[in-house]
């Protein structure tokens, strides 16, 4: 037994929830976004400024006749950007120059951007090179705070104004809002995490034959967290019988499979021996030492033979460098120049993650050797191909990283531009005006543009490189907002038919929700984080390297190659730094340091025993999750700790961080997880027969699910696609999307009248605030056939229940408008041109409608007039201006009541108004509802209480669903939920539907039996019309139902006649434009196959764009016609007699005229 095991009792699975609660109290659900952003604004921004900190301005020497003063002086200005200062709170400068702290709600209402100012300390040095060639500083001046621009601030981050406010609701914020998004021009934007392949990883792939190469080992090397594009380097093994193209230098005498390398900036593949020689490994022995760590490994030696032979003509380092240099971009230059060029490339652009300093050849040679070793191991069948989809090799760029990339690009451009302005100044001999050179809007507008449109950065050609990075936060339901903030996107061609990256991978366990992903094109590419998944923020590797050195890691530079075989290789962030002789000891030491938070908790420690490697990762974007630490098959967290976690007394209480610091739990990333032995639950640890060397234990298996999947009760009883469907549908459910919805002006919002928390819920819902902001009702549901009005996924609903407020909801729509210069909010009088046909009488004196007014389709709600474009004051005085109407009308298909009106000014000081309309939506035939199991349906019929089937107790169902919805879909969870709800209802308790626990249907059934009901939930029911008993017993009980946003009132549409498009004169498209219904290709095909030619002509011509033209029968072109005067003329032919009328679609006439405009004459030849 463990001696320091205290007397406190072992925990049970139930106790894990105390820890889970502590985790969410500390981290919330959007900490990945917020911590990433905080790092950006507190550190990354400073790093980026430091990267581009020094500007050197050398004035062009001007010839000034007469004055030979300073002529021989080499003046140089140096501008250094130093300390960055970020304003603590977002402020907003009003148009009248008042400067106020703003809060998010104000930014939302007034369409402002929630952003804070950034200042930089600028030092200017005037330097002169004196006659001795030494630079002297003539003058030095410092400007403390030079404004460089504004950066959008994430809500609830360290820089948000809400940070210092105790009660969010005082600032009109939602009590449950978690932040994690930005407000750009009044709209809430989320930066969706972007998934990418990790850099600095060696991947070995087998090439599909036929191909030149059989195996390839590649690496995308990038200096830690820099924004330089990664340099690809690969080592390739030729296929059998493949000769290298143009390999004439070896005379084609080499037999066997050779290895070559592809280096960035070098146009040709380099034989591996040449690369080694260029890296100063001259003899074959030296090269082999780097590759075959085991001298007795004859197989690998043999595999290298051909490659070494290939390198025999180049035995000196200079020769090799010259060979490489001549294949670079420089081309034909002198040998010295070539060698210098090759050295430079190998230093700066070859494996830059190892080093870009001088004297790094040996380290790089070791690394190339390691890659060749991996390649040959795979080739010799000792190792398998690497898995591209392994989640440990993926990194997530969160908001901070994305903003960092963007800021770096913009800042570089900005500094360049500033340099140009300063240079201009200097050239003219003017003093350097620093505050003028640093433009005010470049950074502000650049960041704002990217966040507003989602177009993330531009490449060299000026094209948008990524789209859809920034999205408007989904505010339909609270859960949908949360889920949106935890979304991941894989920027991959959505059309690509490759299925591998879309599939659920083993390594997604606990990190990525297995259920929540969209259907269709983006399936599997858009993912969602699991509840307890956390994304590393990143830290520097320097401190870790120091520690490693202190703990006996031998640096690569100082080791004997023979020692490698018996030692363990140590990698930090993919860079091989040395070897260690006692891996076990090192690992346990470093692990202890992490468990005591001596080094950051997010550093991952991976020990690969088979390959004798230890890998450390400190970079940002790794997905991690907390696990219980297990020692001697016992969880270290004991009952005493649980008591402290639950304690409300401050001095005794323990939070999650303390649990980390005491080494009870730790974060593991995917790579490290793979080298651990993790028990599924606490009970499994007792079962020593299966495994007695557990290292960790799952905190709770239900934590593998994401936000939307956590809402599903008993998901472990459902067929898996049903959980996916529900995850998508939960986002369309109505509820209370935020507690401050009355104070917000969202373009579209639905609020449920009497939302209820579910009778049966999963434990995870506590942390999602689903109980406080629910999105549905507990309906009494019968699964039955009754009258047949619930066939094909429709449901019968109880009209009396609807009368009593069941699933009633309010619908809000906001209209907004700005009065730019020349425009005014006023009631447009009769003199105004272009008046709409709507009702102007509902406007108030100020030109805006007032709250409480009933409005319906096409009513004018914002009256606005605009002066013609060129209006002079003189015209105004004489009153001879004719104003144009530019009013806003209500959408023609909607009606409701004006809820609220605001009139304020926007950023430019223009008058700006937002008008919120409200309508009540009562469930009716055609509205859509769904349970929490992917079972959706529309109302097919409503029956009053007396017509509904009833039980002996007089209970009538609210909803009757058809039993055919169950067997093929296998949503057993739906039935179990109903049963558990029934029990919960009678017991007056909340039912527990958390997955992967040992509640069984039998359990619930027995409870129900003891409550005096048929144990499977069936009940005898009677027909509502006849009173006769129904032959079958009906499964009846409460089930949580959601009302989905799709309602008939928003869809109903018909048209007999209506508006036409101007260009083609065909009917307009879409309900909002009162459009026609498309008679499409398939409908056309159907008519063709029926031979219904006249009908087809009617649909496609008579009721669409029927038109007729007059055609000259001489030339076949369209002629002039004046039907009233009976005069016809073809101008070209001077023909006014031989003209006939032809009926054709207007679109056809248009086409002919367009063709004529491009010198093609479509002639219509007519017969009698």
């Amino acid at each position, binding site marked *: 037994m463990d001696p320091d095991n205290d007397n406190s009792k072992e925990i049970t699975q139930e106790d894990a929830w105390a820890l889970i609660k502590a985790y969410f109290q500390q981290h919330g659900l959007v900490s990945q976004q917020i911590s990433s952003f905080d790092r950006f604004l507190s550190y990354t921004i400073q790093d980026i400024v430091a990267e581009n900190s020094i500007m050197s301005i050398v004035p062009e020497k001007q010839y000034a006749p007469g004055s030979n003063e300073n002529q021989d002086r080499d003046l140089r200005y140096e501008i250094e950007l130093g300390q960055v200062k970020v304003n603590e709170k977002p402020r907003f400068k009003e148009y009248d120059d008042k400067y106020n702290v703003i809060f998010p709600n104000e930014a939302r209402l007034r369409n402002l951007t929630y952003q804070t100012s950034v200042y930089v300390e600028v030092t200017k040095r005037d330097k002169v090179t004196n006659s001795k060639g030494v630079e002297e500083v003539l003058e030095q001046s410092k400007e403390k705070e030079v404004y460089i621009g504004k950066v959008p601030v994430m809500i609830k981050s360290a820089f948000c104004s809400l940070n210092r406010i105790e009660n969010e609701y005082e600032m009109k914020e939602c009590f449950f809002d978690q932040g994690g998004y930005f407000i750009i021009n009044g709209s809430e934007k989320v930066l969706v995490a972007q998934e990418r392949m990790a850099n600095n990883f060696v991947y070995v792939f087998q090439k599909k034959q036929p191909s030149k190469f059989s195996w390839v080992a590649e690496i995308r090397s990038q200096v830690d967290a820099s924004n330089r594009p990664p340099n690809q380097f690969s080592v390739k093994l030729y296929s059998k019988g493949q000769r290298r193209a143009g390999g004439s230098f070896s005379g084609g005498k080499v037999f066997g499979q050779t290895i070559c390398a592809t280096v960035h900036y070098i146009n040709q593949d380099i034989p591996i021996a040449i690369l080694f020689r260029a890296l100063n490994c001259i003899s074959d022995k030296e090269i082999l030492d780097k590759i075959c760590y085991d001298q007795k490994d004859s197989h690998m030696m043999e595999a290298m033979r051909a490659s070494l032979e290939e390198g025999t003509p180049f035995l000196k380092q200079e020769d090799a460098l010259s060979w490489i240099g001549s294949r670079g971009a420089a081309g034909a230059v002198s040998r010295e120049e070539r060698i210098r060029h090759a050295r430079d490339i190998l230093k700066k652009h070859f494996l830059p993650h190892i080093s870009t300093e001088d004297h790094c050849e040996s380290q790089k040679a070791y690394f190339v050797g390691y890659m060749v070793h991996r390649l040959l191991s795979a080739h010799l069948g000792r190792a398998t191909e690497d898995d591209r989809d392994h989640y440990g090799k993926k990194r997530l760029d969160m908001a901070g990283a994305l903003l960092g990339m963007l800021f770096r690009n913009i800042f570089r451009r900005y500094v360049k531009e500033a340099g140009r302005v300063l240079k201009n100044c200097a050239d003219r001999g003017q003093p350097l005006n620093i505050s003028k050179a640093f433009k005010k809007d470049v950074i502000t507008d650049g960041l704002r543009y990217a966040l507003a449109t989602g177009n993330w950065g531009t490449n060299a050609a000026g094209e948008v490189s990524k789209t859809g990075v920034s999205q408007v936060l989904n505010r339909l339901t609270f859960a949908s907002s949360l889920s949106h903030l935890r979304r991941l996107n894989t920027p991959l061609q959505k059309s690509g038919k490759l299925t591998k990256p879309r599939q659920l991978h083993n390594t997604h366990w606990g990190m990525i929700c297995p259920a929540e992903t969209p259907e269709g094109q983006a399936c599997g590419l858009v993912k969602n984080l699991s509840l307890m998944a956390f994304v590393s923020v990143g830290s520097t590797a320097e401190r870790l390297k120091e520690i490693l050195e202190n703990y006996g890691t031998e640096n690569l530079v100082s080791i004997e190659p023979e020692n490698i075989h018996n030692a363990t290789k140590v990698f930090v962030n993919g860079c091989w730094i040395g070897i260690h002789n006692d891996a076990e000891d090192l690992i346990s030491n470093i692990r202890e340091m992490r468990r005591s938070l001596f080094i950051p908790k997010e550093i991952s420690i991976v020990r690969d025993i088979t390959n004798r490697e230890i890998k450390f990762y400190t970079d940002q974007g790794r997905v991690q999750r907390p696990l219980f630490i297990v020692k001697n098959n016992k969880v270290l967290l004991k009952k005493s700790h649980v008591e402290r976690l639950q304690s409300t007394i401050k001095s005794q209480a323990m939070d999650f961080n303390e649990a980390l610091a005491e080494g009870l739990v730790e974060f593991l990333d995917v790579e490290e997880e793979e080298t651990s032995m993790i028990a599924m639950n606490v009970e499994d640890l007792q079962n020593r027969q299966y495994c007695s060397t557990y290292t960790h234990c799952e905190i709770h298996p239900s934590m593998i699910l994401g936000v939307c999947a956590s809402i599903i009760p008993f998901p472990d009883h459902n067929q898996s696609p049903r959980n996916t469907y529900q995850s998508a549908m939960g986002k369309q459910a109505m509820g209370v999307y935020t507690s401050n919805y009355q104070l917000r002006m969202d373009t579209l919002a639905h609020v449920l009248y009497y939302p209820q928390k579910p009778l049966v819920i999963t434990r995870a819902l506590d942390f999602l605030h689903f109980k406080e902001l629910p999105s549905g009702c507990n309906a009494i549901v019968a699964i039955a056939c009754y009258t047949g009005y619930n066939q094909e996924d429709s449901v019968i609903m109880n009209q009396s229940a609807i009368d009593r407020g069941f699933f009633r909801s309010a619908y809000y729509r906001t209209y907004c408008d700005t009065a730019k210069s020349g425009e005014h909010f006023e009631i447009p009088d009769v003199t105004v041109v272009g008046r709409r046909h709507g009702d102007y009488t509902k406007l108030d004196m100020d030109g805006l409608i007032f709250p*409480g007014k009933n409005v319906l389709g096409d009513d004018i709600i914002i009256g606005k007039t605009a002066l013609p474009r060129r209006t002079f004051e003189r015209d105004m005085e004489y009153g001879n201006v004719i104003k144009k109407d530019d009013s806003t009308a209500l959408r023609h298909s909607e009606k409701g009541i004006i809820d609220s009106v605001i009139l304020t000014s926007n950023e430019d000081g223009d008058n700006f108004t937002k008008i919120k309309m409200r309508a009540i939506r009562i469930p009716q035939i055609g509205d859509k509802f769904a349970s929490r199991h992917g079972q959706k349906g529309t109302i097919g019929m409503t029956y009053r*209480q007396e017509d509904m089937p009833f039980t002996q107790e007089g209970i009538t169902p609210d909803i009757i669903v058809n039993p055919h919805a169950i067997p093929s879909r296998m949503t057993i969870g739906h039935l179990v939920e109903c049963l558990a709800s029934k029990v919960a209802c009678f017991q007056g308790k909340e039912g527990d539907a958390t997955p992967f626990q040992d509640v069984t249907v039998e359990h619930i059934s027995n409870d129900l039996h003891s409550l005096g009901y048929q144990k499977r939930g069936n009940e005898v029911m009677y027909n509502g019309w006849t009173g006769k008993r129904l032959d079958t017993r009906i499964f009846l009980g409460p089930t949580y139902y959601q009302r989905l946003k799709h309602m008939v009132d928003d869809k109903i549409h018909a048209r007999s006649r209506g508006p036409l498009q101007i260009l083609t004169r065909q009917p307009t498209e879409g309900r909002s434009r009162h459009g026609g219904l498309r008679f499409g290709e398939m409908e056309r095909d159907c008519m063709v196959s029926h031979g219904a030619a006249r009908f087809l002509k009617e649909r496609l011509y008579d009721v669409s764009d029927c038109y007729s033209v007059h055609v000259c029968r001489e030339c076949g072109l369209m002629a002039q016609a004046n039907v009233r005067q009976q005069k016809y003329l073809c101008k070209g032919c001077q023909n006014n007699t031989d003209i006939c009328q032809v009926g054709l679609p207007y679109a056809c006439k248009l086409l002919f005229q367009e063709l004529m405009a491009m010198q093609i004459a479509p002639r219509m030849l007519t017969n009698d």
Partner: protein
Amino acid sequence: MTDQYGRGLRAPVIEILDIGRYTIKFLLKECHISIANALRRIMIADVPTMAIDLVYINDNSSVLHDEFLSHRLGLIPFKSDTVDSYEFFRECSCKPSCHKCSVEFNLRETALDDVKDITTDHINANNPDCLVKPVKYINADGNEEDPILIVKLAKNQKVDIQCIVRKGTGKEHAKWSPVATVQVQQMPQIDISPSLEEDLDTEEKIGLVNSCPASVYKLNAEKQTVDIETITDCHQCQECTIYLENLNKKNDLLKVGQHEDHFIFTVESTGALPPEEIVSKAFTILIDKMSELSQCTEESDAKD
């Protein structure tokens, strides 16, 4: 023919089992199911009561918007003992409204210093002598219960509402239904074969008793017989017969059925009308409907 329909000729009997302030329980014997069900349906949908039908909102600064508030007001049950003295709004000859078809109420409250609960107590009739008024519930101990909460007003919020109460039926809107629900139970009939005593061993008998979720059966320990304890609790779930079926016993040991023309009614009033009133009104309406029907059939017969 006469066999099936002739049964209706028997005189039905009512036996009242229990009358409470809000519920009545009675037995309807010797009555065809169609009559019993008609009675149930009429009680739910055809017995008229009074409820707020029209709301004028002069001022509303509460958190609930106007429609929400009106909906809540509409659902408040009103004491409707005098419904018969009012006309249906649509059948009334008056122009907009008159005292024959509508009663006016008002709700004018302001929260002056703290959060204020606006309840049915704050609804005042314009005519103080009016007998139609919001229901005040009295609990089992005879004490008055808290009035129904309509909305909570925060400081300085105000509501000023005028309500028109009208007569209506549950057919039009559920708010006019005088009952929460009507329970109708056909009298269960359980025949235990005398051979059951011998065919089952004690363990199986205990199993049989436990199989019933409603505890209808009781094991008589002395005589080793299965007795019926409370037959009215049986809800025809057939668990007992299924249990015996699974034991592979002869299937005539136990027969669970229902008495075809015995009904136990339990009427739960919303408080708008006393339960016995609802029942008697329902009968009157049923008779009216019948006579109307017979009149119509006579007329059509005359035409032929």
